[in-house]
């Protein structure tokens, strides 16, 4: 098995075996969405209007889960040292880890979104739009989050600081994700525009994330 496949398989296995992996993220997503009506009231018309935005907020918060452990656990048990002695560039190794994290955290959110759309009284076209934008946008959330994971790798309570650092960086993703979702129903702005920008953001993060994270980790080695 190639080093890349081996690393991907290991991270997938770990995500599944530790703390339920995908399921806790989906559970958190569900809880956040459940909180919305308690805050704004069960007015179904209102929920339909803000539904896409609430789903995106929930997904954004849920995608942060586990990011702080992504690199910290390898740092703590010495795996990070050995990853550096492998013959794979560190950037690539980090990208593979982020990809595994997206598969086990981001994709389940995308799959859960339609079910949660029912709770928020979204019609099928809205739900489909949200799901597509989440599919395109969650990689950006994970790969930018990777930078936060690298910045907080040596900290014990890194999770909260990671959120503080990364959430502002993810604002563009949120803006275009919600815009695309709302555009699918409201129809004043075309769906394609924001969606393509979302794609661009994700593609950019696929490069920026691992590169910045690698630079950060190497600084820490001095």
């Amino acid at each position: 098995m190639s080093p890349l496949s081996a690393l991907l398989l290991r991270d997938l296995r770990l995500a599944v075996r530790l703390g339920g992996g995908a399921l806790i993220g989906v559970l958190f997503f569900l809880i956040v969405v459940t909180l919305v009506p308690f805050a704004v009231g069960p007015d179904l018309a209102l929920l339909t209007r803000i539904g896409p935005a609430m789903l995106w907020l929930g997904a954004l918060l849920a995608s942060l889960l586990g990011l702080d452990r992504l690199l910290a656990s390898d740092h703590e048990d010495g795996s990070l040292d050995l990853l550096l002695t492998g013959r794979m560039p560190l950037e690539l190794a980090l990208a593979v880890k982020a990809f595994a994290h997206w598969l086990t955290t981001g994709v389940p959110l995308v799959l859960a979104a339609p079910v949660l759309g029912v709770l928020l009284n979204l019609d099928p076209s809205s739900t489909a739009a949200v799901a597509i934008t989440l599919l395109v946008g969650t990689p950006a959330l994970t790969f930018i989050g990777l930078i936060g994971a690298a910045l907080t790798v040596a900290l014990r309570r890194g999770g909260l600081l990671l959120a503080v650092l990364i959430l502002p960086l993810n604002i563009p993703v949120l803006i275009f994700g919600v815009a695309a979702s709302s555009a699918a129903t409201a129809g004043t702005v075309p769906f394609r525009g924001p969606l393509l920008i979302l794609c661009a953001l994700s593609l950019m993060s696929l490069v920026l994330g691992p590169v910045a994270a690698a630079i950060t980790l190497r600084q820490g080695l001095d």
Partner: protein
Amino acid sequence: MRTLMSLIDLATPSRFVALSARLMPALVALTAVAFLIGGIQAYLAPDDYQQGATVKIMFIHVPTAWLGIFAWVVMSAAALGTLVWRHPLADVAAKAAAPIGAAFTLICLLTGSLWGRPMWGTYWVWDARLTSVLVLFLLYLGVIALRHTIDDPTLAARTVAVFTLVGAINIPIIKFSVEWWNTLHQGPSVFRLGGSAIDPSILLPLMSMLAAFTLLFLTLHLAAMRNEILRRRLRTMLLMKADAAARA
């Protein structure tokens, strides 16, 4: 008190496994008979003048709501057993009950959603009762996640026990709050699930189904406890194997 304590002492894991094996066939038979009786009575019960035949979803929806609460009560009793008496079977009972409780709660949500669809036009409105059950469902998932995340079994047992008891105190408060919240935003649709007084012709089948579902819970719970005991034995054997290899 002495008799009670000695009875509890009798319930050691190995005796429990033997006892449950003997009880299981009888329980299964009883459950099947109860469902048969309840099912026939439900089928024969009259339709609602307003909702038609869909009202019969109630015969599944209401018992599962009740059992969702009942499972948490069982878990709370087990939690006391773990924290106060340190009884070995208490945690087994708690661990076995949680997924069953979650499943019943989920069925309650799904049947409630299906029941309301013809009247609401949508699959979900934030109805007071259904919302409370949803929160209960989230709590079940949370307790399962909590147990899954903690490696050490003893620590997991105690942590889950504390959370269960906190939940037991909190659940009535949540239910009350949700109902209050719902009255704040009372929309024009007045349909409430099972709101009106229950006619005797429906009461009897409902009671039968309630009994049947309770028996189902007991059967599933007993089976799950047995499986959990066997699982723990397996884990102990693995640990002993590692230990033996270390000495070799």
